[in-house]
């Protein structure tokens, strides 16, 4: 019960304090929103469905990584993060609370392109039963990638810059805008090592009905990436933050 109180209050504080911080607004909301609008206006009609998985994945990726960079690096630079480290709650629980706020932010962002798309096209054929868990898993793995980045950065701008080294190449290598089969042979193995490749593939399947992996495999891969990223981040936190 005590742990739940702590978990809920960390989550609530992050939502209240950080959702509307400038880096979150610019990278987490305005950037995906303007990209969505640009693509949707440029490609009215039938192409919107094909664009939707990419726009959703991008919104989640940018939203979650920005949010985590903000919540962790802001608090670390002001040393308020020490309060969480010194509280009698486990590191796992504290990180889960931080990640939960980020996942909610990422999931909210994911549905922005869907809302826009619904003004232009009929979304009846979209399998929302698959989309919802897929959005959650993409948000989870992206949030954990954001955590790994945030652990290495000291300032918000540093975290955002560092994030872009991962975010932009990932967008072009995950098969959303360029099919993996059209990528140069030497880049394809990298695509298969990116969590977004599997997340985007589930979204594609749920929205357009075309995917290259089985959804079960993709969900398993996302889970695998999430566990691995969590363990790496936790190891780095223990190594870097508890001296």
């Amino acid at each position, binding site marked *: *019960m*005590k*742990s739940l*109180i*702590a978990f*809920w*209050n*960390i989550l609530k*504080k992050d939502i*209240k*304090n950080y959702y509307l911080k400038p880096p979150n607004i610019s990278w987490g909301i305005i950037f995906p929103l303007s990209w969505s609008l640009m693509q949707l206006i440029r490609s009215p009609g039938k192409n919107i469905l094909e664009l939707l998985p990419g726009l959703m994945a991008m919104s989640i990726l940018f939203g979650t990584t920005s949010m985590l960079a903000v919540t962790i690096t802001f*608090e670390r630079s*002001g*040393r*308020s993060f*020490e*309060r*969480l*480290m*010194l*509280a*009698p*709650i*486990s590191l796992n629980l504290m990180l889960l609370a931080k990640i939960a706020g980020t996942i909610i932010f990422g999931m909210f962002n994911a549905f922005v392109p869907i809302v826009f798309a619904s003004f232009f096209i009929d979304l009846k054929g979209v399998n929302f039963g698959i989309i919802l868990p897929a959005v959650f898993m993409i948000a989870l793995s992206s949030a954990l990638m954001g955590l790994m980045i945030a652990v290495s950065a000291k300032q918000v701008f540093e975290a955002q810059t560092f994030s872009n080294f991962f975010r932009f190449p990932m967008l072009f290598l995950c098969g959303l805008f360029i099919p993996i089969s059209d990528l140069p042979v030497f880049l394809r193995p990298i695509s298969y090592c990116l969590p977004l490749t599997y997340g985007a593939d589930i979204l594609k399947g749920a929205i357009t009905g075309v995917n290259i992996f089985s959804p079960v495999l993709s969900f398993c891969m996302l889970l695998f990436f999430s566990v691995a990223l969590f363990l790496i981040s936790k190891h780095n936190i223990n190594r870097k933050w*508890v*001296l």
Partner: protein
Amino acid sequence: MLAVTNLTKTYGDFTAVNNISFEVQKGEIFGFLGPNGAGKTSTINMMIGLARPTAGEILINGIDAIKQTKKAQSIMGIVADESNLYNEMDGFDNLCFCAALYGMEKSERETKARHLLEEFRLKDAGKRPFKAYSKGMKRKLTIAAALIHSPQILFLDEPTTGIDVESSRQIRKMIVALKEQGTTVFLTTHYIEEAERICDRIAFIANGQIVASGTTSELMDSVSHAHAIRFVTSKSAENITAELKNNFKGSKVAVQGDNTFIMESEERISLLPVMNFLNDKGIDVYEAKELRPSLEDVFVKLTGIESSELKRDDKKGGRK
């Protein structure tokens, strides 16, 4: 309450804390006095779980603080050397949030937060964002946040550094009041007067090692066994110093200024014979004061560090 045994912390080749041991009794204020870089923060960080000891043992109320860090943290209140609450939140919300981290129920944490705001004279600022607080107010709220869960032991790292005199005074009063309520206090400081004024026992730390520890009197006695009295008289005693020495065997007499002299002896000096002697010589005694070394003198003698080093730290700390 707190037992530290052979505690060591190294960072690569650098030894920040070198095999220190000490104990803090329940309900006492224990001061860790030393200049910046002496190892104070490294020691406190190991005790609160922000740094891993290279060697040694830390027991807090019987809990192994190294192996059971979270359990130990549940009975600690911690005030870092910087006021580290959340700038975006107001004073009341900050206190409630800190209480929630210790699993306190909503009604309990709100009642306690209101009570602490009142006690720390921050009631009117309770709804102002933390970032709008003055340095002194920030420090007080940070201490209040550390007390929200009624800890058994309070760790204070440089509690009055960088804040105004009035706030420093209030904080020192609060620390003493906490001790009276039964809270054990471990505080680090580089202010000699602060340590002397509020601590029951003090440890001098320099270059990662505890040079001496004890009560103020014990520390003073450890460096000086001589007794000295300063006399302020109606006339100069310059002409009678030899006679004084002859009459009071084993005494040294040093004239200081026109009408002042200091008499020093290994034995305690009985005042009446000296006063009678001076009276016979037609000299009135206006003042006789026993001279004891100050804690600053003791610190300098024991650590070899000039007090100016501490004062330089004082300026770095930005104390007004």
